[in-house]
């Protein structure tokens, strides 16, 4: 089993599959993957003539110690958490939702469509709480609809969900461009390639300086873990993810499951869009660099993978990644680091995740080679 042994003198090195990984190993490999990625990233800093220690000090102190940085880290990790769930739920059913950017855009557009249609300046203004609730519902529904397209096609025709979600990403990217940049209804008054700014009464309420979406994100984590650990519905999703044929045999409806996970995942991505564009203090619009936020959604993919499908496990990971991606941008300016460290980190994390995946499934065995088989002796026949 495993790959052929690598022979070194009288010793050989093989990878042997593990039957059951030891307890706690999952956490260990997750931590190892993150640490290894950070270690590899220091090579990037060195190549740019920056000291890794100084770079990490700058990144971490801005992201987690500086009050402004910490607030931004929290806001961003909420965004990443919703993206994580959006990827995680379909993944538990064995499906790949890489439509995070598109679903985030759909959620953002829908959230802004509500005030566009309903909001009037006072007097005659509708109750802000109602409009905010509608914005959230619209964002979730739009995300779910974008995800649902992939879900329906997967459920009904077995269309590859990776391709469909990716096509939707490109489509929605250009739709947003049209809406906010070139004559679309969401254009801001200054026409600088941004959407209009959300009226002040419609900004998401803050609890201790943090938008209420934080509570929603944490609550969702607990509910998702409960769903997959205990609920019959979660069991069906897991069974379908492990073996569609066995799940079908056991009475799980494959079409309903595929559709449901994409609706649910898309709704989370829609909420991520709402949070990112309508709830973070100081933003309250769809900015010109919305594509950057869409790409950040892929951090959600990697945190779901590293957390191995546990939503609560993804909370600290998303927090860390939120801080890292933010701090890296800060350090770029402060230490004149090269552009794109946050992207590079994404790639390195993916690489070390796959490495940890291998370590989880295989054991590296280093041992002496068995002595050559002796010439067999032709013995008498064994008695019958």
């Amino acid at each position, binding site marked *: 089993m495993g790959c052929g042994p690598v022979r070194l003198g009288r010793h050989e090195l093989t*990878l042997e599959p593990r039957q059951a990984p030891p307890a706690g190993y999952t956490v260990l490999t997750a931590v190892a993957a993150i640490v290894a990625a950070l270690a590899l990233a220091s090579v990037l800093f060195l190549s740019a003539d920056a000291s890794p220690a100084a770079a990490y000090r700058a990144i971490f102190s801005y992201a987690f110690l500086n009050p402004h940085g910490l607030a931004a880290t929290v806001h961003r990790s909420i965004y990443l958490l919703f993206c994580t769930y959006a990827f995680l739920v379909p993944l538990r059913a064995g499906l790949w939702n890489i439509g995070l950017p598109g679903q985030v855009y759909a959620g953002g557009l829908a959230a802004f469509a509500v005030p566009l249609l309903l909001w009037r300046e006072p007097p005659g203004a509708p109750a802000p709480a109602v409009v905010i609730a509608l914005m959230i519902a619209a964002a979730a529904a739009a995300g779910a609809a974008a995800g649902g397209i992939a879900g329906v*096609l997967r459920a009904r025709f077995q269309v590859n969900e990776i391709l469909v979600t990716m096509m939707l990403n*490109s489509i929605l990217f250009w739709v947003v461009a*049209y809406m906010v940049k070139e004559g679309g209804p969401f254009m801001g008054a200054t026409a600088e390639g941004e959407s209009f700014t959300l009226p002040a009464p419609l900004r998401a309420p803050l609890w201790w300086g943090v938008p209420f979406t934080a509570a929603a994100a944490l609550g969702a984590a607990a509910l998702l873990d409960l769903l997959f650990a205990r609920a019959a519905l979660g069991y069906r999703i897991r069974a379908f993810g492990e073996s569609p044929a066995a799940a079908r045999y056991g009475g799980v409806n494959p079409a309903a499951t595929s559709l449901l996970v994409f609706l649910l995942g898309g709704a989370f991505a829609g909420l991520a869009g709402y949070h990112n564009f309508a709830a973070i203090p100081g933003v309250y619009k769809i900015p010109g660099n919305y594509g950057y936020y869409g790409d950040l959604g892929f951090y959600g993919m990697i945190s779901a993978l590293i957390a191995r499908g546990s939503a609560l496990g993804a909370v600290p990971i998303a927090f860390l990644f939120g801080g890292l991606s933010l701090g890296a941008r800060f350090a770029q300016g402060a230490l004149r680091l090269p552009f794109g460290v946050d992207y590079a980190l994404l*790639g390195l994390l993916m690489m070390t995740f796959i490495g940890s995946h291998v370590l989880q499934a295989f054991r590296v065995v280093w041992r002496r080679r068995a002595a050559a088989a002796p010439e067999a002796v032709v013995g008498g026949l064994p008695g019958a």
Partner: protein
Amino acid sequence: MWELAVRSLEVSAILLLAALGELVGQRSGVLNVGLEGLMLFGGTVAFIATQATGNFPLGFAAALAVGALLGCAHGFFSITLRGDQVVSGMGLWILSFGLTTFLGSPYAGPLGLGRIESPAGLPPFFVLGVLLVAAAWFLLYRTGPGLAIRSVGENPAAAEAAGIPVAAIRYLCVVAGGVLAALAGAAYTLSYNPVWNYNFIMGWGFVSLALVFFSMWNPWILLAGASLFGLMWQLSLSPELVLPGILSRYVWRTLPFAITIPILVVISTPWFRTRWGLAKPEALGQPYAKG
């Protein structure tokens, strides 16, 4: 109009090269959904090498080397370790997306060298692509190694029993696929649009992947699909040639992607699959354990 045709063939060539490599890989049973990443990496490395040296051949060589390397990585995970091919492919894509953004951003901007000369006004990579399509068809259907590749993708156990080295064949095909995808990326950044931009490939890798499914694993149909798509892409960039001033140029940009989805639906229907789609390699995506 001639200009449009040439440009659209240039687009077709890029899609075709990447998809052809993927087709050969899939024929051997290995799915690589990270095509987009390989194209990004190939294009970025080629751009950097060419800009640093002013030498086009060197740029292409660098792309080919990086494509082979990434192909090997995908092979190691999916063939040797028998890991999930989707995990590995997705990993390659995100890895490439992240690293190329970092590596390329100091070089962002135009290449600043002359265009690659094209003989007889034909886009050189399209000519190369057509030649490679013919070669791939001949290889797959008219040679012993081609029969071996198809057998490995259909039933690796049968191939192994007939003395075919399954893992070696799959490695070769996957590496060839990586090389072609990287070449496609290089054709983008050195010839089609010699301006480096982060994530310049913008979903073309996934379109190429869709083209492979659409082609029913036949190189000639792949050529037709890539040609059509190239035309559609180029039209979406200059819609005024067909329908002046009707919709925003951004809305036109969605068209190639929006058309891909119904095509994917049609080729996935039971009707289509039982009638035409039996060509799908039976062992596609499945790791093979010897013995």
